[in-house]
């Protein structure tokens, strides 16, 4: 394992300090936590938006802190949900009295830890609401199982929940629009390589030179299907069609996200984007806005995901609203 770190056990803490040191005018680290909040938190008369999860997904989640997006991001150990006490600190730091909204990705750990934090916060008199993002169509949607994972589509939820909160929306209004985004966003990912959890020191799985994993998550877990390596166009087609088969996007305006998982050259993301746009055009789906880059990563995994968000006028206007988050400036 070659990584630019000092010690796997201190990587999380040092990263958080490095983020705080990078943007001292915009954010601050809550003392003795791995929580980063807006410098001006709590913003008075605004619903606080909190997200987070394991680390290793950077720029998620701290990169999305800013005016018009998140108020706080809680980082756990690499790929490990943060603990309830950390989430609680975040909630307390961003509550202005108007309540706090949690954006949670649908993983057992994230759901449990954030839920526990919400209970603790409510016990302290803070109103808390949440949404659980489950955009990954690689996994079957089922109420009998863990259900779908939350992946890159989560960034759209951050953006739009953050925008309505910034505009003064109530906790219930934030929740309503966040739920609408969750209903309307779908994603699918693939990987060429695994990644290395620093504390594990070796790749989470092995792929041969002619293999790829389809239906990958963002925690270095293997995908749903191992296949022979294909062309960019075939990959774009497979991901996009899986997304389109899952939800009716026809005749819609959509936002597209082609997300790199960490080690994919941007060149390749743009080649994928070319095919995605062609495929959508063929199907009569109108692309309103496109995002290409690294938004929700998996350490140094090579691969990408494609997300589609179906838009209506409300979501469009919230998507276009100003955001000062370093990793999602609009």
């Amino acid at each position, binding site marked *: 394992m070659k990584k630019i770190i000092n010690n796997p056990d201190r990587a999380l803490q040092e990263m958080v300090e490095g983020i705080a040191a990078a943007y001292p005018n915009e954010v601050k680290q809550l003392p003795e936590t791995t929580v980063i909040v807006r410098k001006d938190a709590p913003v008075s008369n605004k619903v606080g938006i909190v997200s987070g999860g*394991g680390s290793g997904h950077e720029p998620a989640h701290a990169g999305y802190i800013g005016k018009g997006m998140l108020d706080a991001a809680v980082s*756990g*150990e*690499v*790929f*490990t*949900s*943060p*603990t*309830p*006490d950390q989430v609680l600190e975040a909630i307390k730091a961003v509550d202005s009295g108007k309540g706090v909204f949690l954006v949670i990705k649908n*993983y*057992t*750990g994230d759901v*449990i*830890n954030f839920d*526990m934090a919400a209970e603790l916060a409510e016990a302290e008199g803070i109103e808390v609401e949440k949404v659980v993002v489950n955009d990954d169509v*690689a*996994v*079957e949607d089922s109420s*009998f*199982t*863990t259900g779908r*994972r939350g992946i890159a589509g989560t960034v759209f939820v951050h953006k739009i929940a953050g925008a309505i909160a910034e505009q003064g929306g109530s906790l219930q209004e934030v929740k309503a629009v966040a739920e609408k985004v969750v209903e309307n966003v779908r994603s699918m990912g693939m990987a060429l390589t695994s990644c290395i*959890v620093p*504390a*594990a020191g070796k790749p*989470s*799985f092995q792929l041969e030179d002619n293999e790829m994993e389809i239906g990958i*998550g963002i*925690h*270095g*877990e*293997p995908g*749903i299907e191992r296949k022979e390596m294909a062309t960019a166009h075939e990959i774009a087609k497979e991901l996009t069609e899986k997304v389109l088969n899952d939800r009716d996007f026809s005749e819609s305006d959509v936002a597209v996200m082609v997300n790199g998982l960490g080690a994919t050259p941007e060149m390749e993301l743009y080649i994928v984007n070319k095919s995605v746009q062609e495929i959508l055009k063929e199907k009569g789906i109108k692309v309103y806005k496109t995002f290409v880059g690294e938004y929700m990563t998996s350490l140094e995994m090579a691969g990408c995901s494609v997300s589609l968000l179906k838009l209506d006028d409300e979501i469009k206007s919230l998507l276009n609203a100003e955001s000062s988050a370093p990793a999602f400036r609009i």
Partner: protein
Amino acid sequence: MGLQVTEAVEWMKRINEKIHINKEYLTSLDQPIGDGDHGINMARGFQEVSNKITMENYENVAELLKDVAMTLMSKVGGASGPLFGTAFLKMSLVAKGSDTINHDNITRMLEEAVNGVKQRGKAVEGEKTLIDVWSPMVEYFKRVDRFKAGEIAGEAKKAMENTKDIMATKGRAAYFKEKSIGHIDPGAATSFYMFEALSEVIKAGEK
């Protein structure tokens, strides 16, 4: 016999030891059907437990178990942190007022632990989780009328191994559906070490 504070502390330290020795193995169990952090998570958590309880003087096992629970909840994260945390918290609640952990109260402690985990994890038996060790252990303790150190580890091991044949429907392993079959559940393996440690502490007490 029963476990007094000293033995209960010893139990926790043995769990910590076993988890450290098997840290890579536990992580490797979490790689094919998870995200490869289970051993790392549990080792971090039980190291903190061990540090914490070494520094404290407990008057009763309930207090000890509560500290174990809180430490796991605030140091592990992931799914296993709050779930094992809940298990120990529930055990602590049942143990309140008792001086020892003994055959009389262990069944109720474990039963409450399982219920707590089920509620937190929205899971039941047969979903390939740590419940599939804890729940059979409740049944086992119900069946026997006293601590039988020689049996506990074996029962837990059997339960752990049975998770191999289950198709996961909860936790990360659920994403792999049929492909999750054939792998031992990492949380079940950690649970086995917990019961193995328990049996060793009981055995030591019998001498």
